[in-house]
């Protein structure tokens, strides 16, 4: 088309557009006269204009997901790529086969182009470290972090199964199974939070149900780690990540704690129970009353009003929600667990009472020796008796934490026991020279306490914790 023809075309096209839609064709025919070539061109343009819609009206955009990918069958060191299974904040995740150890693995790769960036490398390293710290059957295990052919690669357990999303899409699960799944997720979160890791992107897509019925939470450490400024270039109207499961403070880009995971957990649990997202427009489905309180607390807008961490969620889900704080009555009187609890309380009481004869002993002995012996006794009493009372309380009111508490406090209690009986016995020997009644009490209690913690307590503990078959433990293994 020469310049004149083009100028003519511009003129008639502009002229036609100035006309009302209905009369444009007639106007064009008249304007072009016998120049059929021009008419043909102009009409074609007019048709294109009518069908253009918002063609080019949205400014050009980058699609950040076009990262380099590895083709099926490619090998990366000893790993053979089987297929791509997803994309994280900056890398691609593959299902691969480890030809050395002959097992399936999941590879999260940072492609060479990005692996050159020291900041991204460091981030990937920290993610792997964080994820590797979590040790729990409900969390995929991290095997290795390696650099192969320029790729930064994080190797972890490949979890086979179906995502919770597809289970939900198929119609969901019953309340009993929902409770089981939720508890497994809570256990995984508890393990993560105790390792100092926040998931940040918990959603049904990240929960896998294995063919054996196990629940695994994936993408720990694959989940995006916030970087300053990263949230500032969001485009209005384009969803960022998975906002539907993000806590309000996370959506605002504020600092995120384990309580954000608790919020996401609440959304997932509610969806599990009702089959619907809490913010869905469909009429609200009822949550079974026994879980309503737990979910409401997870979804509090103020993070401080939510459960603090996965551990608290586990506790909340473990104490039967229909009758939350009555586990006190559940230890059957006379059961091994009851005797164990009784022993803890009784020992603590006796220890405290013994400070009185120990004080008398100090006055009789006098001087630095007396004072030192009394202080030793007192330290023993304070540590051993108070930690025992703590165990007693834990056993009654937060039984799910008891195992941990016993492991943590056992050594201290034992050390304090020895300090207590030893200082009591020595005081008894010193006093024995002139005031026999006090000496007898001191020596007798020292011997009695030794027998109590060495023999009796061991028996009650063994009976109470031999297996999980005590009445209460049966309720939440």
């Amino acid at each position, binding site marked *: 088309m020469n310049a004149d023809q083009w100028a003519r075309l511009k003129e008639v096209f502009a002229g036609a557009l100035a006309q009302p839609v209905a009369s444009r064709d007639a106007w064009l025919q008249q304007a072009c006269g016998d120049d059929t070539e021009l008419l043909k061109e102009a009409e074609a343009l007019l048709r294109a204009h009518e069908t253009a819609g918002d063609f080019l009206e949205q400014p*050009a*955009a980058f699609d950040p997901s076009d990262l380099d990918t590895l083709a099926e069958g490619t090998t990366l060191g000893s790993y053979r790529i089987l*297929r791509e299974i997803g994309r994280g*904040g900056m890398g691609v995740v593959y299902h691969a086969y480890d030809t050395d150890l002959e097992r399936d693995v999941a590879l999260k790769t940072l492609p060479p182009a990005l692996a050159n960036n020291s900041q991204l490398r460091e981030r990937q390293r920290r993610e792997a470290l964080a994820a590797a710290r979590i040790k729990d059957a409900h969390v995929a295990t991290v095997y290795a972090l390696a650099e192969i052919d320029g790729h930064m690669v994080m190797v972890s357990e490949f979890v086979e199964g179906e995502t919770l999303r597809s289970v939900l899409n198929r119609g969901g699960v019953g309340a009993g199974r929902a409770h089981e799944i939720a508890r497994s997720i809570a256990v995984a979160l508890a393990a993560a939070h105790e390792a100092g890791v926040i998931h940040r992107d918990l959603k049904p897509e990240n929960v896998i149900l294995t063919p054996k019925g196990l629940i695994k939470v994936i993408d720990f450490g694959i989940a995006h780690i916030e970087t300053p400024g990263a949230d500032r270039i969001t485009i209005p109207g384009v969803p960022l990540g998975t906002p539907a499961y993000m806590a309000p403070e996370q959506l605002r880009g504020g600092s995120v704690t384990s309580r954000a995971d608790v919020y996401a957990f609440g959304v997932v649990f509610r969806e599990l129970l009702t089959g619907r997202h809490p913010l869905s427009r469909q009429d609200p489905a009822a949550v079974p009353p026994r879980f309503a309180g737990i979910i409401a607390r997870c979804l509090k807008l103020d993070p401080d009003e939510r459960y603090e961490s996965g551990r608290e969620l586990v506790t909340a889900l473990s104490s039967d929600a229909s009758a939350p704080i009555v586990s006190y009555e559940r230890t059957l009187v006379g059961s091994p667990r009851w005797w164990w609890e009784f022993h803890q309380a009784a020992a603590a009481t006796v220890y405290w009472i013994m400070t009185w004869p120990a004080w008398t002993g100090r006055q009789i002995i006098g001087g630095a020796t007396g004072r030192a012996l009394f202080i030793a006794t007192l330290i023993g009493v304070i540590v051993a008796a108070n930690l025992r009372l703590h165990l007693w309380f834990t056993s009654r009111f937060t039984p799910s934490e008891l195992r941990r508490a016993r492991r943590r406090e056992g050594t201290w209690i034992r050390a304090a026991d020895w300090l207590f009986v030893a200082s009591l016995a020595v005081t008894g020997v010193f006093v024995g020279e002139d005031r026999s009644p006090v000496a007898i009490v001191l020596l007798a209690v020292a011997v009695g306490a030794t027998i109590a913690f060495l023999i009796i307590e061991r028996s009650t503990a063994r009976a109470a914790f031999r297996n999980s078959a005590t009445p209460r433990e049966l309720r939440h293994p």
Partner: protein
Amino acid sequence: MPLVYDELRRLAARYISRERPGQTLQATALVNEAYVRLASERPREFANKTHFLAIAALSMRQILVQRARAKKAEKRGGAPHRITLDDRNLDGANLPPAIDMLALDEALTRLEAQDAEMARIVELRYFVGLTVEETADVLESSPATVKRHWAMARAWLKQALDSDVHASE
């Protein structure tokens, strides 16, 4: 010119490496940031924003076309069908329908030969995301003229791209 281009590329690479799938990054955001940076670093060279925008528009077009070309080459290399995490989400991102960047570039080059001003308008409107008024400012033209030319350029390119599709079918 290379300076603007390099800065835009650098910014694009940085943002893309940070973003999550399903999220798009508009050229407009990059151009604005590149301008703020360059204008503060070299105020003498980039004091004139309209001049800068004209350069940025061309640079952005080149960057997007190069990316599209690289992506196409990779596809020929036999990369498997991708399932992104977003595909599994309930409500995927509402992205505008994909435009064949290479075909658009080719058509735009043809349009440029016919009518250079129209091609500039397309670069500024589409590759930078300027409004009609802003485009008129940069080109020292009137909004009415820009609007008229924009309508014709859009129709012309649409026609060119549609006939490409038919030709390849």
